[in-house]
Every structure is written in structure tokens, then in C-alpha cells.
């Protein structure tokens, strides 16, 4: 098996180099997808690459994610023309979202400009975050408002391991606009927002898609069928925004 690894890496390198050959780009279609591929070094087995559109908040959900990566760190993704930021993260605790902490593997954001039908070779060099306890991703984002509260179960006990999802529309469908880190053993969460406004909240243990039977889920609501809005003003922290979660029956 060990003998196969260099051979496999050679093939990957050759494929990556072949991908750089711009002579293969089709002509005429300005919307054609292009492949961005490469290798994440360190090695970055089980790391995830987050692809954001330029201007997206790095603390929110990405446009797409690649991974967890295989043992050789190779990756490939087809993207429409546009500008993107690639970030690699591997959290030591195994989470797929939340702040990057000391000991986690990461890269700085790498801006990639994708042109129609032109493959790109991109190698990512991750490093272990150390020395600075502050999250570095998204530092450029200035937060103006914040929600805080507790996630509890039906008996009022704290619930660990769920995230608060904030939506800017009442249907709470599609992707949430902002997502908190997972709650710790005390069930507390903090959700920083780039601006105050009207938000609709839920807490859940899964990410993506509508809640399914068996998931842990709860909305912020006032007994109504329609979810209830949480309104927070710029410059304010709204405390006590508590949500109760229970199994989806």
C-alpha cells in the first residue's frame, strides 16, 4: 500500500498539471464551469475546504464546501465564473463550523478568480493556529449586533452541541444567513451579526435541509404557526434569546 502512495501522488500531480493547460478551454460559452483542483498540504486529511463568494461573511455558511478530504489532501470542484475565497479548516474537535481555535488547522483566505472554461490549479498550505486566541477568519467583518441566550431541553436543562441558525426571512428555508458555533455544556450561545435587524431563529443539531424526524430542533416562537421575529438594534446585544429544542416527532 505504501508503495502505491507515491504513484498516486504522481498521477494527481500529472492530472493537476494537465488541468493547468488552458488550451483545453472551450470557447464561446461565458457561463461554462471551470474546475479548480489541487492538493491541500500538511497533510490535510479530513480537513474541509470552504468556498465563499467574495463579499460573503467567512463566519457564515459557505457557497459550497469540499471534504472532508482524503488522505492525500487532493480536491476538485467545478465553479461558475466569478471571484471566490477558498479557506481550509480542520477543527481539532471535529466540528464543521464555529470559531477556529488554537490547535486547529487553517489557511488564510485565498482569492481565486474563475474564468469560463479555464481550469485552475490551486495548492493550499495549511498551518496550525497557535499563539493568538482570537479567531482570525473574518477579521475584516465588524459586528454591530449580537444575540445571546441558552438552548435548553424540555426540562430546562442545557443542550450541548447545537447551533443557532439566523434567517432574514420568515419561511426559514434555504440557507441560514448566520450560524453560531456549537453550544458547550452550559447550552449558551452567542451569535454576532454584521448589522441589527429582524431575524428568525432556530436551534438544531444538524446542518442543511429541513429538520427531519429524529433531529433535535427548536424555533424561537411565541406559540404561533408563523415563526416569531427577533429584532436587535445596531450596537446592542440582545440577551435571553432562549430556545427550547426537542426531538422532531
Amino acid at each position, binding site marked *: 500500500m505504501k508503495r502505491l502512495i507515491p504513484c498516486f501522488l504522481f498521477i494527481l500531480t500529472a492530472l493537476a498539471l494537465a488541468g493547468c493547460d488552458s488550451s483545453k478551454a472551450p470557447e464561446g460559452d461565458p457561463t461554462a464551469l471551470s474546475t479548480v483542483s489541487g492538493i491541500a498540504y500538511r497533510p490535510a486529511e479530513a480537513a474541509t475546504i470552504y468556498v465563499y463568494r467574495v463579499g460573503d461573511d467567512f463566519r457564515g455558511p459557505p457557497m459550497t464546501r469540499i471534504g472532508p478530504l482524503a488522505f492525500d489532501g487532493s480536491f476538485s470542484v467545478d465553479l461558475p465564473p466569478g471571484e471566490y475565497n477558498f479557506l481550509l479548516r480542520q477543527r481539532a474537535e471535529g466540528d464543521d463550523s464555529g470559531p477556529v481555535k488554537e490547535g486547529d488547522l487553517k489557511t488564510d483566505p485565498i482569492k481565486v478568480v474563475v474564468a469560463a472554461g479555464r481550469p485552475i490549479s490551486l495548492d493550499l498550505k495549511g498551518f496550525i493556529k497557535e499563539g493568538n486566541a482570537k479567531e482570525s477568519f473574518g477579521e475584516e467583518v465588524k459586528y454591530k449586533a449580537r444575540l445571546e441566550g441558552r438552548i435548553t431541553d424540555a426540562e430546562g436543562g442545557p443542550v450541548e452541541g447545537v447551533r443557532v441558525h439566523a434567517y432574514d426571512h420568515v419561511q426559514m428555508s434555504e440557507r441560514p444567513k448566520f450560524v453560531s458555533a456549537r453550544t458547550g455544556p452550559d447550552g449558551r450561545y452567542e451569535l454576532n451579526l454584521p448589522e441589527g435587524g429582524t431575524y428568525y431563529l432556530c436551534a438544531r443539531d444538524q446542518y442543511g435541509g429541513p429538520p427531519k424526524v429524529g433531529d433535535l430542533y427548536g424555533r424561537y416562537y411565541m406559540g404561533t404557526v408563523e415563526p416569531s421575529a427577533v429584532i436587535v*438594534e445596531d450596537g446592542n446585544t440582545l440577551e435571553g434569546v432562549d430556545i427550547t429544542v426537542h426531538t422532531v416527532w
Partner: protein
Amino acid sequence: MMLRANFYLLIVTALLLIGCSGNGPPPSLKALEERAASGDSAAYKGLLDFMVEDKSQAERSRAYIALLKAGRDAAPAIMAAAAEGDPSQREHAIALAANLKLEGSFEAAVNALNDPSFPRSHSAAWALGEIGDIKAIEPLADAVLSSKGELTAREAVRALARFGKSAVIPLAKNLEKMPPLRKGYTLRVLGELRDERGKPYIIKALDDPVTREDALWALGTMGRIGESINTLSYLDDKDWRVRVEAARAVGLLQEDDAKAKLDYLRAEDPVKAVREWSARAMALFEGNPVEYKTFSGEWKVPDSLYH
């Protein structure tokens, strides 16, 4: 050779002893799921044992889904667990009984709702809404007023909303006796039920500053039904949250005489949320997006909340 034969003999004896004593390791969740899927009714009790408090959420969910798939064949085991026992197991059993519409599920849910020792009575409230038997209205209305847990009260209000207009009077008649939070839930659901018999209760709640915000939300949601009331004056309320709900209400109710005030508020109110909601309300008159003025002097269209 001799050694190997002795070893095999030892293993066979041990296996026989385990098999005969009946004290072998309990079957795994995976084994129980497979047995339940093949119709082995002996697996149902084992699955229920994976729903108890000290199991993980993932295990409880898997066991729940396996029993849901087993359906009515699992009824005896489910109904026994719905009557008493570990709170987590009972919660899941009540939900299963309601989902599967099992015989006796209504009685089990009512008993659980009224059982002061059951800490998860919210599941019983949900179950009664799911079962849909109209006899549940009174016990649910009582739970809104007097259940110990806030979650149970909120789930009871929501369950009542599923009964539609039949729930209006049972909900409204207890309004004055409720603590403020529960009064708020009830007012809002009365708005969602859109029945004119609920309107006088909502209008009365406008007098109390504690429930004014909820009452305005309810009036806006109810729309032009029943007795008409002008909510314009609440656009001047000193509480900005009341002004937000008043702006929403005058927009939804299409109160023409509010237009000038909304136009002022979207530019001059000291609270951004009021400016945004005033612009949203104006958009309901105009049929097009309307901007509000930011504190830096720019004009901006607020987020569309209903896209």
C-alpha cells in the same frame, strides 16, 4: 492438537452457558432495527429501551424511526411505554402513538398532559394537536392556563391553533387569568385564527402596555375581519417595539390615513427597526419596495422577509 480441541470445547461450553442462562449481552441497536424491520415483535421492547434518558440523542432517534416504520404492529409495546416510566421513553412513546393514531393514544396523551410528575408534558400537548380529537380542546385550554412548564403552555396554544375556529372561545375565555407571557401567545394565536369572535379580546389587550405589542401583531395578522379599529395612534407609542408592530399592522390593514406618518417614520424615527418596518408597511400600499433612511443618510430597501 489436543490443546486446540480443549480450546474449542471451552468456547462451545461458554457459548452454551450464555445461551442457556439468558443473561447474554443485550442486542445492539442495529440488531434490533433489523429484527424490527423483519417483523420480529420481540424487538420492539428492546427498541423502546433505547429511548430512555441515558441514551444518546442519536440512539433515541434511530430507535424512534425504527418503531415508526414498524407501525401498528408495535402498538402494545408503545402504549405500555406511553402510560408511565422513564420520561424520555414516555415522551417518544406518546409521540409515536399520536403519529400512528393508535387506539388509546388520546387517553394516554390527556393523562400525560395532566400528570404533574411527567416533566415532558409538552409532548402530550403536541400529540393532542396531532391526533385532532375535538375533545382535546378543553384539556389543552386548561394547560395553557395552568401547566407548570412554559414549553407545555406554548405547545398547547399551538396545538389549539390546529383545531381552528373551535378553539377561539376556549382560548380567549381564560385570557384575563393568564400570566403576561401566556397571554401574549394566546393573543397572537387568536390573530392567526382570524375569527371575529377573538377580536374584542385582542382590542382590549391594547390597553395594557405589557400586551400591546402582541395585540398589534394579532390585529395585523387577523386582517380586516370583524370590528374595525384604528391603530394609527400606536405609531407614536414610546415603546419602539410597539411602534414596529403598529407599522406592520397599519400596512397589513391598509389604513390609508397612516401613510403620511409612515413616510415620516421611515426617515426620522430614532430606531432603525421602526424605519425598516415603516418602509415595509408603505410597500404594502405602493405594491413596490420602499426605502428607509439609514443613520448615515443613505436610502436603502429593507430585507424582504417574505421571499
